[in-house]
């Protein structure tokens, strides 16, 4: 009787897990399924739940008849640029906050932490004014700079958390062996925190890729500078475009992040929760 009950419990658990996963992931699958559907089928009932007659050429259409490659490239340039600048700055600041207690370091820490919580819809206004004066509107640089406003605060704190978890003894040993603090950081701390640094950088990249408010405001006027989020939002605005085309574009735009997530989930999740659980 007890064994039976236990078995029923197992079955129930599996059913719940499978059902939950299907429901929650379904919208992503639906994006994929719709992208492959023939145009006629999009307006037919009942909808097809599987790509019976997959139209792969829609991806060629989206990639070559639209400036999709340019948008993807712009997003990549901005995300790489903003992440690299932010990482250099944040590694140094995070290390300083983790290892030294000097007058004002708590203040700096709290300032950086709170700036992570600022509303982008406010910051975008003065930044727009600033960039217009600097003649940066329509340039990818405006976006690189704007994205550091949210990547640096979060990266500094995430890295500080990683550095905190590395024992100080290691650097002290290195310094006794003749390293100065910078070479100890470079030779001892950085290699040890490589997974953390990689996770932080990935995170920065994803945050930058996701941005819409800054990209729309600074780049809307120059089509060749659009990032993929701006591009897709405009496809959505053209009412004549078929849903299969919109979904194919959305999938292509989301793909880099989805792939990163699928392969590096462990690092990302580790980084996400590390700061909060300690």
């Amino acid at each position: 009787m007890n064994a039976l009950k236990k078995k029923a419990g197992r079955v129930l658990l599996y059913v719940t897990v499978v059902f939950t996963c299907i429901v929650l992931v379904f919208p992503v699958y639906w994006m994929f399924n719709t992208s492959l559907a023939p145009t006629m089928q999009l307006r037919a009932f009942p909808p097809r739940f599987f790509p019976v007659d997959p139209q792969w050429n829609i991806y060629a259409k989206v990639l070559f008849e639209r400036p999709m490659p340019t948008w993807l490239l712009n997003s990549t340039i901005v995300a790489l640029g903003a992440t690299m600048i932010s990482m250099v700055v944040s590694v140094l600041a995070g290390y300083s906050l983790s290892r030294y207690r000097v007058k004002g370091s708590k203040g700096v820490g709290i300032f950086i932490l709170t700036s992570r919580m600022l509303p982008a819809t406010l910051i975008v206004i003065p930044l727009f004014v600033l960039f217009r004066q600097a003649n940066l509107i329509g340039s990818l640089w405006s976006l690189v700079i704007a994205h550091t406003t949210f990547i640096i605060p979060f990266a500094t704190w995430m890295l500080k958390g990683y550095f905190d978890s590395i024992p100080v003894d290691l650097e002290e040993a290195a310094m006794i062996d003749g390293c100065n603090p910078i070479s100890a950081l470079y030779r001892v701390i950085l290699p040890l925190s490589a997974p953390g640094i990689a996770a932080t950088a990935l995170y920065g990249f994803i945050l930058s890729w996701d941005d819409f408010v800054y990209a729309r405001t600074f780049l809307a006027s120059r089509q060749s500078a659009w990032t993929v989020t701006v591009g897709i939002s405009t496809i959505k605005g053209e009412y004549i475009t078929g849903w299969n085309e919109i979904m194919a574009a959305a999938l292509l735009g989301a793909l880099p992040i989805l792939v990163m997530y699928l392969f590096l989930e462990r690092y990302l999740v580790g980084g996400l929760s590390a700061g909060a659980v300690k």
Partner: protein
Amino acid sequence: MTETMKAESTQAHSRFSLWRPSNQSLLAYLLMLPAVLITLAVIAYPIVSAIDLSFQEIKIVQVGRERFPWTLANYAHLFTSSEFWKATWVTLKLVTIATLGCLVLGLSTAMLVNQRFRGRTIARILVALPWAVPSVMAAVIWWWMFDSSFGLINWLLVKAHIISSPIAWFSSPTTAFFVICVVMIWKGYPFVSVMLLAGLQSIPGDLYEAAQIDGANTWNRFRYITLPSLSPVMGIALILVILWVFRDFAIIWLLTGGGPIGATRTLAIMTYEQAFGFYNMGYAASIGMVTLVISLIASIVMIRRFSTSIY
């Protein structure tokens, strides 16, 4: 004695080294310097300039070209405008519902994939997958799912006899607000789930064993072990989700643009709309200042409450 000290200090002077322990604080400041300079330039300066703008009745074309006298007109207009109070109410409603939704769905999925079963790793990846869908793409997917004529949701609901005819989701205030809630929850719960899962994993298993021996049932184990152990993580997750919903722009802007008749116009949307839709930079900045103050209060609460775990 004093002689030797003098000698040492002159020696230190002659061969200045940043690596000396006595120069540690200088090194600490130098390491922080790039971050401080950049944040001052791209965060602190813009905030000051937004404050300045919020006290001027200024349009977008005039900004940077001329200065207007300081006035409280924007704030006076703001606090007497029914649009502002409506947006505040919409924001409050959305933050409450979406945050609760994220919390409930996040906690239940975290507890589900914390169980032991085969394929748990895959289930964990799938459960948090929406996190990896960029907001713009998430908005576009759901826009299609809630499409009034050919959307899947309408088809399913009609098929299940829950509604008799398709609903135009984005045309009525209530349904549009509902759609925004659904999308926000779908995009926001994985973050909570991941954080809470890490929290669950850090609860020692002995606690549950001991409770089981003492005869505690499932509910009591949840109520007296799981919830209290999770509460610090849950607190942080809660505030981060509140702030995320509060500040979101992409999802609402793309799905409803704040409409219909302001039913989904949050303070963030109203700020942007005033600035770049109606070009009232000064007025927009004043709404933005209100959102800034609210965000600051929320983050100060978080820092106060969790300062031990954060700093």
